[in-house]
């Protein structure tokens, strides 16, 4: 495939667009303050403020107190203000292999789950987008419908299916395909299965929206110029759906990195993900500062490379 670089460029351009769409939509002068103000206030109250609190806790020391962390500043006699920033939490994250391992494992699990979700979600989305208008809504509903059931109940249902005495094993034993129950639950396989199952709609919805907009005459033009349908898919449909792929992958990958419930309920003891580590630090070890620094590092781990890459792509796109 000689247009991979082009597809990557398309991928990141789509990513950039989905992030900056808000900014570009708001051009009018009237009502501008309200239009910007409402989301800004929401972002401030629900994201920036909590994040500042977490950031502040991550630079403090663990204490046996209420709350269980030290204050960052102190007034000394004579009017001195001392600010004490504790970087040891971050140093520990770097030095203790446990945390780095958990980060890398989370990234790996999230990346592979995203890939599997894409591989399953793309054909699904393609089928829905190309289907007859009458069917399209019904098919989309089939994708969305499971969401109306509680997330936890759906995960527990998978436990019931995957257990050694669960539906799948019982059926296979009854049919005589196996004579010992398979170890399905508490494996990486179960984690991937759980994530792909739960996040599939997040992949399918942006992809369907993108593929529905695909101009059929472009495929006709490709055929007219001697391109067989399969080749036309790779040269026209796939590159043009890159923004949809980018949006879908982001929507799956980012929450999957911090996923706690699915690996906790379906996963085995050896593959520790960062969400679980964070939970342990917070609730079992009662070490809020360390838990906070794990959270901050996780954010930096995902967001900073994404932003940097986007910045480079954006500059490159502008220079040509």
């Amino acid at each position, binding site marked *: 495939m000689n247009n991979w670089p082009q597809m990557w460029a*398309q991928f990141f351009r789509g990513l950039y667009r989905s992030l900056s769409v808000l900014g570009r939509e708001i051009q009018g002068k009237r009502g501008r303050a309200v239009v910007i103000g409402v989301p800004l206030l929401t972002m401030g109250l629900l994201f920036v403020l909590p994040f500042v609190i977490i950031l502040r806790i991550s630079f403090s020391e663990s204490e046996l107190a209420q709350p269980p962390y030290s204050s960052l500043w102190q007034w000394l006699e004579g009017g001195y203000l001392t600010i004490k920033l504790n970087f040891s939490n971050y140093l520990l994250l770097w030095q203790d292999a446990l945390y780095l391992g958990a980060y890398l494992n989370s990234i790996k699990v999230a990346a592979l789950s995203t890939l599997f979700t894409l591989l399953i979600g793309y054909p699904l989305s393609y089928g829905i987008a190309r289907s007859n208008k009458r069917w399209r809504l019904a098919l989309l509903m089939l994708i969305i419908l499971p969401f109306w059931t509680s997330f936890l109940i759906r995960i527990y249902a998978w436990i019931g299916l995957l257990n050694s005495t669960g539906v799948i094993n019982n059926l296979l034993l009854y049919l005589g395909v196996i004579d010992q129950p398979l170890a399905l639950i508490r494996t990486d396989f179960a984690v991937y299965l759980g994530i792909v199952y739960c996040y599939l709609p997040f992949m399918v919805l942006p992809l369907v929206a993108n593929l529905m907009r695909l*101009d059929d*005459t472009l495929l006709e*033009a490709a*055929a007219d110029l001697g391109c067989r349908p399969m080749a036309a898919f790779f040269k026209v449909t796939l590159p043009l759906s890159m923004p949809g792929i980018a949006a879908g992958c982001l929507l799956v990958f980012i929450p999957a990195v911090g996923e706690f419930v699915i690996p906790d309920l379906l996963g085995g003891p050896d593959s520790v993900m960062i969400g679980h580590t964070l939970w342990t630090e917070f609730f079992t070890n009662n070490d809020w500062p360390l838990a906070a620094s794990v959270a901050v590092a996780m954010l930096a781990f995902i967001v900073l490379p994404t932003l940097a890459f986007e910045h480079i792509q954006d500059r490159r796109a502008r220079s040509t």
Partner: protein
Amino acid sequence: MNQPKRRQTLLAPWQDASAKPFVRIVGITKTFGTTYAVDDLSVDIFQGEFFSLLGGSGCGKSTLLRILAGFEIPNSGRVYIDGVDVTDLPPFLRPVNMMFQSYALFPHMSVHANVAFGLQQEGMARAQVAARVAEMLDLVKMGGFANRKPEQLSGGQRQRVALARALAKQPKLLLLDEPLGALDRKLREHTQLELVAIQERVGTTFITVTHDQEEAMTMSTRVAIMDAGRIVQVNAPSTIYEFPATRMVADFLGAVNLFDGRVVAVESDGLRIRCEQAGCDLIMHAAQPLPEGTQVSVAVRPEKIQLLDEAPSADHNWLRGQVADIAYLGDVSIYHVKTTAGQVVRVQLTNTRHESEHALTWDDDVVLAWSSRAGVVLTS
């Protein structure tokens, strides 16, 4: 109309019985549900022609083009291109290329990549592709835009790239779907002549679909007027304009005044037609004699009618009226003259004098007159 002179001096292979048609469309029928989009249509098109399918929306012209491209499979009938039956070939195997109405340029590819696309499908070597793309872009005067993306081009530039892309593979037949439909009027006139020049240079057979009669007349060697899935008349533009076969054709191609009547006598210089509506007799030259009593329509073009101050001595081909409306278009003026019988007749005069010198104005009484060869007698 602005029919370039040189076209009329071209050979007319359709008049030559021994000429071998290049594209043969034989008995094509295509239905969508219960409607006939194309209805048992046959036509032969010759090598190097600029052939236009002209008709209103829903007349089946676009469907016919899509059948030629291979996007639609006809219910019955065959299509032959250069002697080969292509009816069952998928679009990617046909020696045919199409320029789409929306241009359908690939938005994620540069101009160069768009033009190179078809050549790469053939597995042409890189250097050859580059040379051919450069040649094509020069042909359409887009040489400096190879690295642009379609979204960075104006409508006219996109149209040129679409043409270059469609011509790059040197197709035996080029199909153009409303090639100038998306351009503004000024650009369209210029592009019409340019498209003809390019067609003459590459020598490819062009089949174009248009609803714009002026466009069809300016560019084509032959025009096929379509209505309800059938071809009503096919001929050189000037022939169709001067000798329309039916009222529909006369009305569709240019403006026309229709006078209904019936043949009352066959005289030495034409048919005498009694015309209640016009309130006078018309004597019109007809290609074939018609029996007395035949119901006919006389079609007279607005520019072939004279406005006189006084009635001529003859008892036919003139009627009185009053100027109801004047449309001043600069080069010409259109007069809507209301006859005593109440019919509004359209008359077009060239403004050879200054506007201020024009004597005619609203409510002036005038006499409309024309010669026996100024119109045609239509039976359908």
